């Protein structure tokens, strides 16, 4: 086998050199599609992280009218607490609300100056075990008599409830659309790469039809004839994959810091293990594209 491996490697490199324009075309096509796959995977990871962090921030606030009876408030708190979807219920008094508000607005003192007495209501802050179930918790609260009794605005109970209406759902819908668009692009580009490899290998076969004829004549086994071409396809794909991985790394170090600066409140980050996984996925995808593309060309144009 020692001789054979050397022979195959030599043959596929020679082919690559001989048709380097076509090979380059194939490499670039694979590179671009793998780059897109890589970038979209990274974007997917980042988006998922962001969605998760937004989910954690989803909570329900029940605003209470001034002077609501303490026992009613505690009863409502206890009632809400019985729901398994509820993680915790905290009571925030008018004073605490004002303190918190002042903290948040510390950068705009002119707003604080406008406030003389305390306009903020007291509230119950409900945290959920599963943010996606926010609607059902809200419905339960809304339907209880206790809530109507203590609500800030009994005439319009909706206004007394605040929760991240649909934010999570919208975010999910958005990421789904992004993923679908990317998936369609990836599939299309993968198709183009396959066609390109197919063409390159076809040219390589054509350039060497005489040799192939003689190989068949003297009884070279089918795999012996096919292997250099398969290896050429895989070689092209591997080159494309290496380029794509390098580009993703460059993009990561160029864009991530800026992104973090722009949106400091969002956890934007890619771990090393994610990058390793990504590299493996891209390499594997490249090899697969190479094998399938050249395999298809061999089936069609090299009947040995």
């Amino acid at each position, binding site marked *: 086998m020692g001789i054979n491996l050397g022979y195959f490697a030599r043959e596929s490199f020679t082919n690559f050199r001989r048709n380097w324009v076509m090979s380059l075309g194939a490499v670039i096509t694979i590179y671009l599609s793998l780059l897109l796959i890589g970038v979209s995977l990274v974007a997917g990871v980042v988006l998922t992280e962001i969605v998760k962090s937004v989910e954690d921030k989803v909570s329900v606030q029940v605003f209470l009218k001034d002077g609501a009876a303490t026992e009613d408030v505690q009863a409502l708190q206890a009632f809400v607490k019985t729901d398994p979807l509820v993680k915790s219920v905290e009571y925030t008094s008018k004073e605490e609300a004002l303190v918190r508000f002042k903290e948040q607005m510390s950068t705009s003192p002119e707003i604080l100056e406008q406030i003389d007495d305390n306009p903020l209501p007291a509230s119950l802050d409900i945290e959920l075990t599963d943010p996606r179930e926010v609607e059902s918790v809200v419905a339960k609260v809304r339907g209880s008599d206790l809530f109507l009794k203590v609500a800030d605005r009994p005439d319009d109970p909706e206004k007394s409830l605040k929760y991240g209406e649909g934010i999570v759902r919208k975010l999910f819908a958005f990421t789904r659309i992004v993923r679908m668009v990317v998936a369609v692009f990836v599939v299309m580009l993968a198709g183009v790469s396959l066609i390109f490899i197919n063409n390159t290998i076809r040219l390589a076969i054509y350039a060497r039809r005489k040799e192939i004829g003689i190989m068949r004549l003297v*009884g070279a*086994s089918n795999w*012996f004839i096919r292997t250099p071409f398969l290896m050429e396809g895989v070689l092209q794909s591997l080159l494309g994959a290496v380029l794509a991985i390098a580009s993703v790394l460059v993009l990561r170090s160029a864009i991530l810091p800026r992104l973090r600066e722009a949106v400091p409140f969002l956890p934007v980050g890619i771990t090393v293990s994610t990058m390793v996984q990504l590299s493996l996925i891209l390499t594997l995808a490249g090899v697969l594209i190479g094998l399938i593309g050249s395999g298809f060309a061999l089936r069609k144009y090299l009947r040995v």
Partner: protein
Amino acid sequence: MPHMISMRGVEKIYPPDKPALTDCNVEIESGEFVFLVGHSGSGKSTFIKLLQREILPTRGQIIVAGQDVVRLKNWKVPYLRRNIGCVFQDFKLLPNKTTYENVAFALEVIGRSRHVIRTQVPEVLRLVGLEEKTTSYPDELSGGEQQRVSIARAFVNRPPILLADEPTGNLDPATSLGIMSLFNRINKTGTTVLVATHDREMVDSMRKRVIALESGRVIRDQHRGVYGYGD
């Protein structure tokens, strides 16, 4: 002792309905030297291609070197071909390889070790009388020399059968004589040799077994025969 080559009731019809061989029954023993003669289009090339399994017959049975060619699995065809050396009118040499490399190529691609290549190639080049031309490229060789290279390539693996399709078609009579005596020498080593030709003088002077084809039928099969055809 089974026949080296055996055809029974072989018929080949090229699509859609062009008959090339009809009811062909031929048996060739191990070590025989046989001429296959006939006009162009008489079915000689079809006969050769069937033995190599370049093509399959429409019906009939073909046995070559103990293998049922018709039933042979695709992936086994290369191993059948290792038993059959082939020589053609147009030599089929690789122009960018030297004499030595052209012959070595045949061993390389069937996975022979370097040691085997280094001993067998010079030996077969000596047999065909080209030991002085090992580093020449095909375009530096005469037609006869090129054909010797192609014979060396066909024989370097010592196959039990050597097929030749119009091997002297491009050569002058004197050179052809040399090629034929080379075939004769190879035949003396025990190799079965089948030469398709329409070189009348050659056939008449060698007095070997002659199988004559006409319009795809075997019209004559005689030992120590001549080319025939009174015309």
